[in-house]
């Protein structure tokens, strides 16, 4: 019973973190902040949900498979993020700074 409740909490909070990351990707102003939002899905959402599923599965082969997926994603996700940020920099995209956004706002007011 206690373990069941714990796994519920873990899986539901994982779903909430997935929603947060999707909203962040949709709302953030430029590519680098969007990368920051997208990495939440790879760490928090995946980690919490898989932890909950591991508790549900118990000591079986399913837990081993879940741990394998988690291990692979924990190696692959930073690699992808780093390569994407480097490709964006090489592609000539500059990060949006705070001053740029303030200037844009002042222009919109006038």
């Amino acid at each position: 019973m206690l373990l069941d409740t714990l796994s519920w909490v873990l899986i539901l909070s994982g779903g909430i973190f997935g929603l947060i990351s999707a909203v962040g990707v949709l709302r953030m102003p430029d590519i680098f902040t969007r990368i920051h939002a997208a990495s939440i899905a790879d760490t928090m959402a995946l980690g919490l949900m898989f932890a909950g599923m591991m508790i549900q599965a118990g000591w079986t082969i399913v837990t081993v498979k879940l741990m394998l997926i988690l291990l692979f994603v924990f190696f692959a996700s930073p690699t992808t993020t780093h390569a994407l940020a480097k490709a964006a920099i090489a592609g000539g995209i500059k990060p949006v700074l705070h001053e740029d956004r303030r200037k844009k706002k002042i222009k919109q007011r006038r």
Partner: protein
Amino acid sequence: MFIAATIAIVIAMVLALIRALLGPTIYDRILAVNLFGTKALLLIAVMGFLTNRPEFLDIALVYALINFIATIAVMKFFRFSHLGHPHQGDNLGDL
């Protein structure tokens, strides 16, 4: 509980698809597709538990591998215009 998680994941997938369609630059689209792949991985795993068939996790593992390879390959293609060796000199390196 698994149904609630499934609904949350599907909503997040729709939001990622919206960003993939809107995305001003190609990198935004790649990032959104990568996020969509991660969500699809989660969805496959949750669906396996929902229908009481944890064999779906094998498909989830393959999906994680394909997602990583596809993202790297697409980024390399858009950086160097082809998937072979970089033609602008060795000092650039891979990605």
